[in-house]
């Protein structure tokens, strides 16, 4: 019931979110709508400089849409999306934050207790890559020690204006143990893939709730234990 109410894009599921990427769908699909035996809920936060495409990545992932001009986010936006991964239903609670530097002091409340983070930069803007590194450092220092961090080099469709080399970002990601993909919210390239990669990396031994620190983590863990009855909605929606 709660999942239904808050399922911003529950109907679509990963299948609609990443409609262009059939090969991924296979992995996320279950035959003939069998009941899922595990449901995990994870808190994921998006961080990065203003206008790198944080909201656009979320909009693509949750609703399968793209707006050339996405409104600037004030404070933060909250959305959910549920995907299926093997025998597990993964529900992401996504916090999409404001990028402008002065909103920085509000960020900790969003990454506190988060089990995953996507740090986004714009491949056509070197400064945004620097800012992404600062976010990664802050997360490593202040977020949950088990947080899964993904680095997204967004606006890959503008590769002809590239200012950040793929290899440079990949090397940085390797050094810091981050998942890394270049993405395009516009073409949908690697958008559902990056969320799926995160989902794969997150611990899914139910009670742990991903082992995230803070009160958020433990309360989610509790919900998951009793979540089975309410699971038909999202499970059916994304696995049919």
């Amino acid at each position: 019931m709660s999942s239904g109410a808050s399922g911003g894009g529950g109907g679509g599921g990963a299948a609609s979110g990443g409609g262009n990427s059939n090969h991924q769908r296979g992995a996320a699909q279950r035959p003939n709508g069998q009941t899922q035996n595990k449901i995990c809920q994870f808190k994921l936060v998006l961080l990065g400089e203003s206008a790198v495409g944080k909201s656009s990545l979320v909009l693509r992932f949750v609703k399968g849409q793209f707006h050339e001009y996405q409104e600037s986010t004030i404070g933060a936006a909250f959305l959910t999306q549920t995907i299926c991964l093997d025998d597990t239903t993964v529900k992401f609670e996504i916090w999409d934050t404001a990028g402008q530097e002065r909103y920085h002091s509000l960020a900790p409340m969003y990454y506190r207790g988060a089990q995953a983070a996507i740090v986004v930069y714009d491949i056509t803007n070197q400064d945004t890559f620097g800012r992404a590194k600062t976010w990664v450092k802050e997360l490593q220092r202040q977020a949950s020690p088990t947080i899964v961090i993904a680095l997204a080099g967004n606006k890959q469709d503008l590769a002809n204006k590239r200012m950040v080399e793929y290899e440079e970002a990949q090397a940085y990601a390797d050094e810091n143990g981050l998942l890394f993909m270049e993405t395009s919210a516009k073409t949908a390239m690697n958008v559902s893939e990056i969320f799926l990669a995160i989902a794969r990396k997150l611990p899914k031994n139910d009670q742990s709730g991903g082992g995230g620190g803070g009160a958020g983590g433990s309360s989610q863990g509790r919900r998951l234990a009793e979540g089975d009855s309410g699971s038909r909605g999202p499970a059916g929606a994304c696995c049919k």
Partner: protein
Amino acid sequence: MAKSSYSKVDEYGFERSENFNYESYDAFMSDYMRVLTRRAQRWNALENNIFRNTSVLKRFIRKGIPIDRRTDVWMRISGADKIKQNSQYSYSYMKKQIHNKAIIETIKIDLPRTFPDNIYFISNEALPEMLFGVLATFAHQNKEVGYCQGLNYITGLLLLATKDEESSFWLLKAIVDQILPQYYISTMTGLLTDLDVLDDLISKYEPVVSRHIKAIGMPWAMGTTKWFICIFAEVLPTETVYRIWDCLFYEGSKIIFRVAITLIRLHKPEILGATELGELMMCFKAMRSSEAVIDCHQFMKDVFKLSGNLSKNSIQKLREKYKK
């Protein structure tokens, strides 16, 4: 019937959402048109004598300033006129001084991202240009603030109401320099203080809601940052926002707390029904399209009824208490 009589775009050029409830809007509008006509007549009858009696003025403003008088009345009651008169430089002079490339670049990125669903902003160049003029000029003459995201939405709505770049600039200056000092500076201390003030007020007005929200673990900043930063622009329906701003310009920032308390009281059952953070956030988001806020005339009555006696003095004391 009801569906066909309203355009997909509202009176201020915003596209109506897919789930827009035309029927309840129709019921509200047929009454509200009469209200608007009546208010216009009453204001016209008093002409400029309206400014003589402050209690009549306050009552009239709370019932809504007629559209065609909004710019002049806002300029006068907000103090923007005075700021303009006392300013060493004219707007056109200051506008010519725009030079900082970083500020210009940042603002330009946000121009097409401001109201991309508004036909007036996307269909002609004039409004985005005016928006740039106001924001860039403002950023250059108030260096402590510079450009803060959120001001683009406020300025956008000022422009849609006034259709005038210069008035919008002085009104923005009244808001940022006088009505909400310290909100938009780089540390945002004014905002952080007011979030604590709201927390304090809600714990007194609605202790049950306050405890519930704390138990779920939602900091007020999560649900209400945009309320304060945008003064409800992009949070509530446009007409409702203008009605709030009518009062904001005359009565000051206290109105933001009145509206916040009212929103929380009107949606108390939904808030208490939320069992986890995600649901709570959805509940805050849904306030935007609830019937209680679409009927702006009733909503403004609720604002002054449900937020009770809220003195400037008490807000001032709380602000001192939570000063950053």
